[in-house]
């Protein structure tokens, strides 16, 4: 026997569910576990400690690494970039996501060194790859318009690019494609470390070498972000994670000496100065090994 879906048939359940939702919303007492089960599944909970959207770790921004490189006074080197002509090679979502991270880091580097015409080209590539990955939302279309009208303003471009990556990250999380967001982060982080390690070989800047050593904990964090997807994505994904784990064994040999010093807070400026000190000790042999391994990982990403 078939049943007709009349207006009242549809409206009654709708009103009932609306009342359920309003009832939950108006309840001032803490929600019972069974009311939040669906959300608890989405936002993993472990006792009283929960992960922020399934991420217990943050990865340093490639845009900031580019800024730190510029501050050392090392001149611009176009050879470090991944040529835009390679984009047609990236046909899988995995490769596209990784190289979206790579090109984002390139864009940050170009922007820092005032290479704005080239930055516009790389921005175009980021736009195309974002569309191919299906992460270009209407908000990003507005950001693209902002980019077009601020092409000659370095600081504005930096803001726009960071907003775009933040929106993409949020969009991917909303749509349960968190792994794509993490792969983009991985591409950006590897490219940043590639820049640092190549520059350390040519310039022997202690500041750059220290920055490399400081990637020890971010690398551990990155591996922890990727680990839940091991064996569930593709052979390429698993291979990348294995390469990063091998790299982490080299980083394990780096000594980081930390000394706590009480911070100073200036309440009127809403500012706290963190006075604690960290000393990174990295041997030449470790630096060379890191350079070799990062180059191999980076090549497997961009080829």
């Amino acid at each position: 026997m078939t049943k007709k879906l009349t207006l009242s048939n549809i409206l009654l359940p709708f009103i009932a569910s609306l009342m359920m939702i309003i009832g939950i919303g108006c309840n001032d007492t803490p929600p019972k576990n069974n009311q939040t089960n669906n959300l608890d599944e989405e936002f993993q909970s472990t006792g009283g400690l929960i992960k922020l959207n399934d991420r217990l770790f943050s990865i340093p921004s490639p845009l900031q690494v580019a800024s730190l490189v510029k501050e050392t006074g090392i001149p611009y080197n176009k050879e470090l970039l991944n040529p835009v002509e390679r984009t047609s090679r990236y046909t899988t979502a995995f490769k596209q996501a990784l190289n979206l991270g790579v090109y984002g880091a390139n864009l940050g580097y170009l922007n820092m060194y005032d290479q704005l015409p080239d930055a516009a080209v790389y921005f175009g590539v980021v736009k195309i790859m974002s569309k191919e990955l299906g992460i270009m939302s209407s908000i990003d279309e507005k950001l693209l318009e902002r980019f077009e009208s601020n092409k000659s303003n370095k600081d504005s471009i930096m803001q726009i690019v960071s907003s775009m990556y933040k929106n993409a990250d949020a969009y991917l999380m909303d749509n349960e494609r968190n792994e794509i967001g993490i792969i983009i982060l991985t591409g950006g982080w590897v490219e940043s470390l590639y820049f640092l390690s190549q520059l350390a070989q040519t310039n022997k800047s202690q500041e750059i070498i220290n920055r490399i050593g400081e990637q020890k904990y971010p690398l551990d964090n990155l591996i922890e972000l990727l680990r839940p997807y091991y064996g569930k994505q593709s052979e390429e994904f698993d291979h990348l994670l294995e390469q990063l784990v091998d790299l982490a064994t080299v980083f394990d040999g780096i000594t980081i000496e930390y000394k706590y010093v009480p911070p100073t807070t200036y309440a009127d400026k809403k500012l706290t100065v963190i006075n604690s000190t960290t000393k990174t000790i990295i041997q030449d042999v470790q630096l060379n090994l890191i350079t070799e391994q990062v180059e191999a990982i980076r090549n497997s990403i961009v080829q």
Partner: protein
Amino acid sequence: MNKTYLKLTFFFAFLLQSFFVNAQEEVTTAVCDKYMNPPFVSDGQQYRALINAEEVAEFRATFYGGSIYRITACSGSQEGQLIFAIYDRERNELFSNRGYNNAPYWDFKFNSTVDCIIEAYLAPTAPPSGFAILQIGFSK
């Protein structure tokens, strides 16, 4: 007939719940975004979770020496509903906004690179559950 009603009720309940959750999240993000402005540039990541009063959200981050950072922390549509604290890896507390009216943002100047743990939980005055959103921005 009853089964059809039940299915439709749950379907609409799911849709409405998704709508309210997304709406709440967007409002909270807007509150946070207000303070993430130049010269601070977002690190391109958003840290968020739906937490209850008894829960603590935590994540780890590396802050580079010689840089100034801004952390924004929001929950709900009003400021001051999220308390956050920063610790070093030895669990020494470096800062908490609870002593500063649960300020929705704070700046940090790191003289040396430090690996930190950031914790966030709802203020006693906040609703019993809500979205916690944190953002990290850096300044050159």
